[in-house]
């Protein structure tokens, strides 16, 4: 019967939980299956039945019982008396049952130490299990049992696990270190040995956990990090996200002790230091450091460079930790790269916003400029939580300066009216702060605040009074009107802080309002007994000050108030009264002090400084708990100051382990059996040492030199593959072509085989090119793809290539929704422009021509064809592209031309990203000996790509591009241009646009899109009678539109 009913409940997953609820007897019984028990059972009985179930032979019953017990634990109920029954099942074969027993054991072992020992032998056995998951979980549980007697066993287990084959088990052992340490700090020395060993581990899985253990056990042993520093930096990208956070914060501390400050006043530092990495790590640029004022240690730069990509992490904690690393370690001019990412985090959950805003608040005090461009991201929304609102307010106030104050104040005006009165009050304080910080707006703010005094809401008025008080104190001279106004307010305001402030103001400036002050005192005397303490204190103050300045009128009033104060309930007030009386009323007992009463009470007081609550938060490391709560949290590790002289940097040097021998034997196996796997490994790491060996197996056997970390990659590509044909992929889809044509067929082959290479495309180009000619000879049928090949000058590559490739592209295009298709140009102008005259080029002549084809290198580039001719009498060698300007100009260069014989010429193509502007692209054309500055000036029409679309789509697009996006002109066309064919040619010659079929004879339509941004361009030419025509251009890029319109006008008007 019993077993029946429990079986019932196990049919339904709720059973376990529900019956657990039953046992708790906290909530009303809701479950059906447990209701039977509920009638007659007590707590004791319940546990009894659990015990029976656990001792039963049926696993399902045991499991059911354990599930209920876990339910009890989850509810926080005590289930410790079941310990003996549960612990028996620790050796169960059923893995779920075992896991639940583990959960129980970890929870109660501390309370039942003797019984817990029964289970230890099971774990010791499991530690030797062939299954890594079982080994790991045994270690996890063993180390979680907080029983001091087994410390030696734990120690042994940790040491063994630290050299386990499986990185997962090693990771677990790193966690166990911390557990053991918290159980028995005396084991520290032994544990440090294990940490030292694990720090050397090259697995990304272990890195995060061991650094965590390091931080917990021995954060002061910085020396353990030296040898592992570079490895950690390089592994960082591949470590799991939680580990990244821990490693970054440890490295921040490390860097502050090992490198000199990059925050020099002169701020110039040597960026070239980066090069040092790529060379051997051993030869350091130490000599340079002595000569130059500041050279960033290459290791310092390494850290900054390797953490930067993590700003793009989806994990907010990682982004924040990189941001704090930059804040604390980067040169001043580089810190601002974190801004964007921090602002991005503001889109995240409320709690994330809170922490990020706090950190931004601290940062914005020191570095306004960092966040000023993003000011609008801090505008308050009515749906924000109150603490978010006040943080945003804080940041806006910090960002306020002369230039943006009017915008900010306008925004503040909205906030003052907010229904959230606490927030409105905060805004008023913020206005006050702006007013003191920016003197230009002090008066404006003050007037605004005075207006607020007539507000209906009391908190707003009170806050305004308090702020006005502070402002007036800064410059009281011209504001006696405001003081009078406030004196009048006293009758209506009930908020004690505001009343106290007004009283203080009147007392302080009683000489400016001689008539009003005594009257105010009179009123206060009447209501004294019913006032709040703070108001009473200020009343006493006011009375004292008036007594000193105007004793004739106020003597009696003062005495009355002092008498009231003498018998007040509050001891502060009694105390103050007694003190004031002695001070101001001369009598025989009063000492020397009363002589100075006037100087004491009416001393000029310095104006309060209104400053941010986040002013002093920067003493804590950003992103830490201590920073958030603004007190030192336990376990907070101070960030040390930069050392004046950098400690020896050679301590970080590591012997480079030659990986060649390690991988050589396994080459055949891994290379063939699991090529996909090994290339997978490569994708995500380009400089991790440990992957170095696999890198070799992925490519070919020829890369004998891939030893040192970063050099490895380039080396393995340098060496020509011995048999290129071997690399022919079995299949390559047309879609591959698009990715590969840029560097030629060789590239594609390499790309297909060693899948990872494409990650390094930019690196590979120069190395691969030398083999192009041989490859092409071998593979005649594909030679037409080799646009860059110097031997193919007579072929017009584009015209051959584009149709087939484009159809492929079309077929594969994802954007089926778009009806626009890039088409070939309607007309390619033959005209070529001079790039370099042979005289200035010392024999090298160059001409360029716009091919008007979509650029294959990158869709947003314009493709340009350059023909180079050698008119000199000697060979020109190594023709390539050198420096370019503007600096950000993106050019897809042609590959270096090794040599050009006299009178030979070669045509190459390149891609230039003009960024949709007609600004000339300037660059240097270099030969071996010379450099010539040249420039390519595009006509506006060449920046488009022809597009085909239907008339219907054209109309639809045109409908979207009205107003600002439209420009038109009426012109008189010459007679020959009135028929459609010449007209089409004229337009097509002027701009690279496609003809749109038109239903009307007199309307001609053309469509294109800009190369860079892909903005649609629509041209309509409507012929009217008597050779008039209206040209209309619709495009988002209105500048380009009007330029094109000008050109078209000229072109159509001329014969």
């Amino acid at each position: 019967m019993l077993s029946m009913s429990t079986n019932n409940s196990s049919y339904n997953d709720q059973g376990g939980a529900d019956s657990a609820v039953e046992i708790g007897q906290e909530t009303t019984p809701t479950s059906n299956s447990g209701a039977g028990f509920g009638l007659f059972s007590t707590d004791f009985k319940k546990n009894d039945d659990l015990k029976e179930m656990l001792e039963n032979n049926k696993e399902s019953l045991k499991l059911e019982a354990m599930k209920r017990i876990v339910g009890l634990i989850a509810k926080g109920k005590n289930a410790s008396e079941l310990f003996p029954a549960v612990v028996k099942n620790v050796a169960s074969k059923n893995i779920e049952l075992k896991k639940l027993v583990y959960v129980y054991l970890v929870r109660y072992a501390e309370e039942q130490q003797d019984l817990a020992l029964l289970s230890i032998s099971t774990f010791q056995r499991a530690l030797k299990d062939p299954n890594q998951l079982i080994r790991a979980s045994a270690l996890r549980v063993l180390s979680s049992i907080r029983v001091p007697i087994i410390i030696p066993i734990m120690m042994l287990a940790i040491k063994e696990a630290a050299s386990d084959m499986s990185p997962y088990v090693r990771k677990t052992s790193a966690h166990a270190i911390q557990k053991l340490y918290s159980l028995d700090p005396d084991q520290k020395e032994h544990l440090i040995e294990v940490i030292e060993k694990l720090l050397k581990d090259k697995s990304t899985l272990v890195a995060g956990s061991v650094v965590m253990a390091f931080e917990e056990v021995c954060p002061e042993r910085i020396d353990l990090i030296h040898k592992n520093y570079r490895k950690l930096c390089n592994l960082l990208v591949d470590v799991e996200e939680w580990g990244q956070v821990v490693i970054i914060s440890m490295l921040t501390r490390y860097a502050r002790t090992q490198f000199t400050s990059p925050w020099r006043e002169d701020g110039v530092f040597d960026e070239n230091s980066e090069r040092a990495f790529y060379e051997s790590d051993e030869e350091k640029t130490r000599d340079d450091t002595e000569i130059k004022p500041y050279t960033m240690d290459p290791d310092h730069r390494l850290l900054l460079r390797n953490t930067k990509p993590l700003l793009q992490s989806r994990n907010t904690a990682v982004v924040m930790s990189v941001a704090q690393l930059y804040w604390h370690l980067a040169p001043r001019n580089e810190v601002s790269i974190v801004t964007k990412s921090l602002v991005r985090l503001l889109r995240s959950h409320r709690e994330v916003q809170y922490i990020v805003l706090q950190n931004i608040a601290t940062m914005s005090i020191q570095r306004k400029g960092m966040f000023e461009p993003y000011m609008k991201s801090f505008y308050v929304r009515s749906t924000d939580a109150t603490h978010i609102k006040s943080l945003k307010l804080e940041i806006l106030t910090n960002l306020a300066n002369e230039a943006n104050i009017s915008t900010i104040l306008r925004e503040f005006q909205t906030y003052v009216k907010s229904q959230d009165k606490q927030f409105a009050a905060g805004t008023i304080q913020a206005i006050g702060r702006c007013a003191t910080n920016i003197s230009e707006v002090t008066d404006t703010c003050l007037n605004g605040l005075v207006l607020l005094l007539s507000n209906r809401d009391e908190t707003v008025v009170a806050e305004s009074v308090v702020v006005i008080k502070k402002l007036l104190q800064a410059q009281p001279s011209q504001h006696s009107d405001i003081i009078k106004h406030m004196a009048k307010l006293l009758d209506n305001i009930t908020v004690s802080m505001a009343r106290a402030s007004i009283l203080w103001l009147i007392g302080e400036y009683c000489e400016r309002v001689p008539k009003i002050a005594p009257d105010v005192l009179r009123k206060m005397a009447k209501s004294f007994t019913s006032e709040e303490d703070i108001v009473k204190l200020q009343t006493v103050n006011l009375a004292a000050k008036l007594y000193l300045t105007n004793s004739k009128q106020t003597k009696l009033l003062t005495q009355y108030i002092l008498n009231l104060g003498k018998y007040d309930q509050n001891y502060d007030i009694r105390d103050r009264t007694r003190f004031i009386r002695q001070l101001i009323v001369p009598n025989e007992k009063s000492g020397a002090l009363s002589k100075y009463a006037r100087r004491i009470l009416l001393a000029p007081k310095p104006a309060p400084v209104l400053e941010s609550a986040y002013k002093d938060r920067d003493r804590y490391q950003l992103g830490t708990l201590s920073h958030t709560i603004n007190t030192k949290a336990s376990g907070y590790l101070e960030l040390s100051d930069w050392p004046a002289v950098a400690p020896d940097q050679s301590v970080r040097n590591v012997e480079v382990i030659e990986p060649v021998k390690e991988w050589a034997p396994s080459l055949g196996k891994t290379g063939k059996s699991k090529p996909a796997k090994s290339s997978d490994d490569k994708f995500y790491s380009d400089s991790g040492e440990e992957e170095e060996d696999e890198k070799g197996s992925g490519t070919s056997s020829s890369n004998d030199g891939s030893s040192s970390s970063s050099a490895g990659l380039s080396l393995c590509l340098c060496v020509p593959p011995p048999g290129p044909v071997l690399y022919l992929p079995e299949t390559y889809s047309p879609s591959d072509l698009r990715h590969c044509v840029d560097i030629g067929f060789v590239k594609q082959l390499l790309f297909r085989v060693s899948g990872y290479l494409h990650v390094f495309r930019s690196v590979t180009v120069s190395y691969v090119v030398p083999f192009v000619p041989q490859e092409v000879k071998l593979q005649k049928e594909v030679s037409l793809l080799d646009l860059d090949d110097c031997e193919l000058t007579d072929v017009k590559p584009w015209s051959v290539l584009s149709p087939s490739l484009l159809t492929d592209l079309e077929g594969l295009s994802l954007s089926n929704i778009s009806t626009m298709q890039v088409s070939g140009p309607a007309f390619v102008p033959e005209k070529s422009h001079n790039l370099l005259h042979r005289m200035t080029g010392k024999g090298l002549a160059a001409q360029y021509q716009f091919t008007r084809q979509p650029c294959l290198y990158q869709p947003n580039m314009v493709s340009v064809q350059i023909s180079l001719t050698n008119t000199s009498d000697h060979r020109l060698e190594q023709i390539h592209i050198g420096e370019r300007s503007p600096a950000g100009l993106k050019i897809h260069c042609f590959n270096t031309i090794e040599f050009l014989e006299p009178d030979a010429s070669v045509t190459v193509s390149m891609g230039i990203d003009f960024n949709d502007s007609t600004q000339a692209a300037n660059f240097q054309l270099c030969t071996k000996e010379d450099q010539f500055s040249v420039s390519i000036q595009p006509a506006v029409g060449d920046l488009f790509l022809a597009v085909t679309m239907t008339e219907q789509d054209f109309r639809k697009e045109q409908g979207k591009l009205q107003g600002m996006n439209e420009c038109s002109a009426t012109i008189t066309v010459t007679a020959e241009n009135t028929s459609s064919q010449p007209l089409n040619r004229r337009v097509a010659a002027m701009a690279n646009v496609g003809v749109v079929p038109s239903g009307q004879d007199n309307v001609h339509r053309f469509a294109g899109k800009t190369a860079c941004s892909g903005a649609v361009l629509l041209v309509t030419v409507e012929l009217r009678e008597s050779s008039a025509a209206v040209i209309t251009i619709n495009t988002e890029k209105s500048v380009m539109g009007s330029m094109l319109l000008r050109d078209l006008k000229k072109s159509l008007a001329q014969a």
Partner: protein
Amino acid sequence: MIHSLFLVNSSGDIFLEKHWKSVVSRSVCDYFFEAQERASEPENVPPVIPTPHHYLISVLRHRIYFVAVIQSEVPPLFVIEFLHRVVDTFQDYFGVCTEAAIKDNVVVVYELLEEMLDNGFPLATESNILKELIKPPTILRTVVNTITGSTNVGEQLPTGQLSVVPWRRTGVKYTNNEAYFDVVEEIDAIIDKSGSTITAEIQGVIDACVKLTGMPDLTLSFMNPRLLDDVSFHPCVRFKRWEAERILSFIPPDGNFRLLSYHVSSQNLVAIPVYVKHNITFREGSSQGRFELTLGPKQTMGKGVEAVLVNSQLPRGVLNTNLNPSQGTYTFDPVTKLLTWDVGKINPQKLPSLKGSMSLQAGASKPDENPTINIQFKIQQSALSGLKVNRLDMYGEKYKPFKGIKYMTKAGKFQVRT
């Protein structure tokens, strides 16, 4: 790091606790309850609360507070991010993350928490790894388990845990190979009284649902990658490739995941898709207020504006409203003063409007501030920024996958001040 976790429901009961180190008494939550009482709204509870011996870091989701107990210094975002990940995992496993769902699956919850943290340090948070360790409960599996005696708990270490692509398990097989990408953009805006834009920005995400066999390697390129000003990636995206070529290259996780979130550069002017005409007035001394609201499409790129929902927190002085919507339904809660108008689709020929009067507390003075109007809407098949996916290619596998892409624009925090 994380010492203990308490789950607190909206009425202030602790309904689940879990300890990773020695047990912390649940009385530590009293500090939390204190803060909860002080806060006027549930959202106003501070996320970090210091107590004499511990620190409480909490997140609020689905009206459940997840309160983590911390004993020493740790980056607060680390804990917050982790707690959110826990919620996401629960949602992934149980479909919803409610008190009832957690109570019903308390054993799975416990097993999950056990795997997610070891000694307070995150161990496995990738959903595919967790799913191999602990299978999500389904009715079928529960029945099968009872009959066969098999369990929800995996016996082998998940392959992903050890590989460099921990987000993908090996041996994935599908008969239909599909990859779907949703480009969803949200527009955040503040519009002022006169209808001019104070601030407007576009944030977007690309959510993917990839069901592909084997180890596919995908590349996704955009027509206009320049639009993306700031991006954050799923760990699977190769950053180097993006830096160099603005191409997303990745081995996708199996199933649903967020590939990318981005921010569109603020230099580009943002087209505001809807406009609001409003006339909300309270007259001094009168117990009546006027309320008029008309919505209309503005720059919608020819697409219809759907699922429009307007809500507004009216001032406290408003007792009731008597409004007349030209379409849709409206509700007004006299307790919270929240006005909600479910508009539906905007018909450009016949603009939806909501007109009528509000009755105010007699004798009370007129409210200072006019209410802010929050608008939600959707525009299908278009991404407001104009972001377009150029193409998607697959390498590494031989089959032809079915590819699809969908664009959508939504209102994020879209507020109109009146």
